[in-house]
């Protein structure tokens, strides 16, 4: 992870007298700015060529507990594409208010909505500060420290078996009549209306939340003038499970199965991001056994192929190419078979651990992967024969919903969406986590930034992934069976780390680290007040969440049929956008 160099940060401190440079215990420099001067300072950071932190990464809040005053602290993470470095900027939210950043980065809009929804921090200057995941009228802010993890059980909702069939369920240990708050139909109507206070055209079309084309429970509001979209907003949160809240209440290794359930299409990559962040916080990421690193790289790339195959199948299915779905699922099934044999599960995998992987490869694993990877490029060119130069495919994708480089920086777009717009932003190259520094691969870059480019970039990514997997197989064969696959600390008394994770403590300080997932950069910001077995705050920077946000902009002026193309090429997974 390349953070801002100390010289540069000190330069900021001497230039602005209100800037305070500090260093956390884990070695990350961060800059504290009073909130009154925040906008002025950020404008400088964004525009000055020596700094040019123009790419938005994340903007969130830490709750320091009821007793503290000010209680909330805003945390902003920015990236400088010119200098390839990151910076963390913090600002105390006095009177539970922070300035809104949507003037500087329109991508902050949803981040601020989320912080308002989860913490109750108000943003001055926000255009329409409504809830992000919960419905209007929900009385609490669930990520505050005083909100219990089980919620307030205040709605009586008995099982139909109990009411209709007189089944005796009361008293059973997995049953309760009381539930946490639920939205009523009126609540949902309010939620819908407040999202679009001013209609621009005649018809508001509701698309979703339960529509096969939305690939999950996303609720689109499209303000239509004839066939053309004038205004758009998205209601998500139907799959919100409070993963960040859960993370604060369980151990580090215990949280990995929950990350599986975020982006369930590429669960290995979700594990990977969390594991890398936790290892970097412990300071052991460089010391992970080589074998584990190569296994993890190989599995992550297989998972990327797996995820892209599902994307390709459903995307083509949505645009009317039915056969693709059957073909890609056949290849996908093979990868699932490999995952089942190696990790023990096909879908929610939980194979990686903080410190390595939980088991070595079983006999025949590398053979099976090699067999698949030898065959795969041939299959990929089959898909391309069907789609790439097909005239219908070209008509539906060429020049549809163009995203520019500026959009990428403003909205914090990452992954294939950013790369298709010509921004070579790839954490595998920037951070070189695990074995990515030692493998040879290219970053595919698009030119126009339309849906067709996003399609081509993902296809090329699959080719590159296959190339990486091949290198991993060759390298892995050189290891011996007795090489360790799990980290062993030099002094087990100081650092208790085990595969089952009991007793693992992470140090005081903070860390932001991420990996390049099929759906963009998934980053974990872990903040600890003191060394503890549970994190104080875990912020999940979801690539799919920020990528989905740009939908509301890119669809404007396009016909309604392009909504499906755009959504498919952005490729969000609701488990990750909602968390």
């Amino acid at each position, binding site marked *: 992870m390349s953070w801002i160099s100390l010289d540069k940060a000190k330069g900021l401190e001497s230039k602005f007298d209100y800037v305070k440079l500090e260093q956390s215990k884990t070695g990350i420099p961060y800059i504290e700015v009073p909130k009154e001067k925040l906008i002025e300072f950020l404008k400088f950071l964004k525009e000055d060529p020596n700094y040019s932190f123009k790419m938005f990464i994340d903007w969130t809040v830490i709750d320091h507990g009821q007793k503290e005053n000010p209680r909330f602290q805003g945390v902003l993470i920015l990236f400088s594409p010119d200098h390839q470095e990151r910076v963390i900027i913090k600002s105390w939210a006095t009177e539970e208010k922070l300035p809104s950043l949507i003037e500087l980065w329109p991508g902050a809009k949803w981040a601020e909505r989320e912080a308002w929804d989860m913490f109750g921090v108000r943003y001055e200057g926000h255009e329409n500060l409504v809830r992000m995941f919960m419905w209007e009228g929900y009385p609490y802010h669930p990520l505050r420290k005083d909100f219990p993890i089980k919620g307030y059980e205040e709605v009586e909702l008995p099982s139909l078996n109990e009411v209709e069939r007189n089944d005796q369920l009361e008293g059973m240990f997995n049953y309760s009549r009381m539930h946490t708050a639920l939205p009523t139909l009126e609540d949902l109507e309010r939620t819908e209306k407040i999202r679009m206070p001013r209609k621009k055209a005649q018809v508001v079309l509701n698309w979703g939340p339960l529509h096969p084309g939305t690939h999950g429970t996303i609720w689109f509001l499209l303000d239509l003038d004839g066939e053309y979209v004038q205004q758009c907003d998205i209601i998500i949160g139907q799959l919100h499970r409070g993963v960040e809240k859960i993370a604060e209440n369980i151990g580090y290794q215990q949280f990995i199965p929950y990350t599986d359930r975020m982006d369930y299409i590429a669960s290995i990559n979700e594990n990977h991001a969390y594991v890398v962040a936790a290892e970097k916080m412990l300071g052991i990421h460089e010391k992970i056994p080589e074998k584990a690193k190569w296994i993890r790289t190989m599995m992550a790339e297989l998972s990327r192929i797996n995820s892209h195959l599902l994307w390709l199948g459903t995307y083509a299915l949505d645009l009317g190419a039915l056969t693709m779905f059957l073909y890609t699922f056949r290849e996908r099934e093979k990868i699932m*078979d490999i995952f089942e*044999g190696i*990790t023990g599960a096909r879908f929610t995998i939980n194979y990686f651990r903080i410190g390595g992987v939980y088991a070595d490869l079983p006999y*025949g694993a590398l053979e099976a992967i090699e067999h698949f990877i030898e065959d795969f490029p041939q299959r990929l060119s089959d898909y391309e024969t069907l789609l790439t130069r097909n005239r219908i495919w070209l008509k539906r994708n060429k020049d549809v919903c163009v995203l520019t480089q500026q959009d990428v920086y403003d909205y914090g777009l990452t992954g294939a969406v950013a790369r298709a717009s010509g921004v070579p932003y790839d954490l595998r190259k920037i951070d070189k986590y695990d074995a990515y520094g030692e493998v*040879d691969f290219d970053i595919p870059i698009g030119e126009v930034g339309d849906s067709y480019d996003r399609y081509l970039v993902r296809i090329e990514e699959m080719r590159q992934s296959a190339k990486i997997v091949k290198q991993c197989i060759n390298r892995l064969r050189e290891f011996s*069976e007795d090489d360790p696959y799990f980290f062993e600390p030099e002094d087990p008394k100081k650092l208790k780390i085990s595969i089952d994770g009991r007793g693992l403590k992470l140090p005081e300080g903070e860390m932001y680290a991420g990996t390049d997932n099929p759906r963009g950069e998934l980053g974990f910001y872990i903040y600890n007040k003191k060394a503890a077995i549970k994190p104080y705050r875990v912020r999940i920077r979801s690539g799919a969440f920020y990528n989905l946000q740009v939908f509301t902009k890119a669809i404007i002026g396009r016909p309604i049929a392009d909504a499906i193309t755009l959504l498919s090429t952005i490729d969000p997974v609701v488990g990750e956008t909602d968390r």
Partner: protein
Amino acid sequence: MGIKKVGLNRNVKPQTLTEKLFFLDFMKGLKTTIKHLFRRVVTVDFPYEVTIPAIRFRGVHGLRNVDGTEPPDFDSWIKKLKIKPPEKGETRCIACKFCQAACPVPELFTIKAEKLKVPEDHPHHGLKVLAVFDMDLSKCMFCGLCTQACPTDCIIHTDVYDLSSYTRRSWVLHKEDLSRIADDFIARRGKEKFDDHSKWRKDQKIWPEYDYPRTKIWEGWMPSFLPNYKKSQSNGEAEN
């Protein structure tokens, strides 16, 4: 930094006039489809044909009984926790609750041990036995952390995956059910998964070699299940 530019006119040629006029793009697509028409069937005809889960598959849990393959430190654990030494066929569980501590959803376990009611001069006086071990599988994520935490290798994952039922009640498995499931699994596939001390075998295979339905998706291909790493091959089997 390796960058590969993609796009129309970059790595994809636009359609030529001949292609447009004679619908060659459709012809090529049809050729691919027809080619696939003559390939073998890859799907498994599910209720009549089932694939056998891989040996590492994380299915319904089981509680293993004492059968002579306990880990070497089994006796010391029993002494440490003051558990009545189990005889052959009795559960290995020592009620240490490590599984619960490692579980991401700890409330799914209910584990209780109680003291034996025996007179004072009995050798087992003051020792405990496992009384309750309930698992609510409706809350379970099948992540496998409990099996990795277990010091006596008692709780294991089996290859049973059909969990559906009509009532909540049947999702709660008691210690007798769990023992029965484990016994059944160990009898069928125990040798494939565990060594003589109940640890995972080093030569576990990625899939069972007798799993015919699985080869359908791989078009008849089956790995030869050789060791993955070269260095172990040199003192074992030769490379072909």
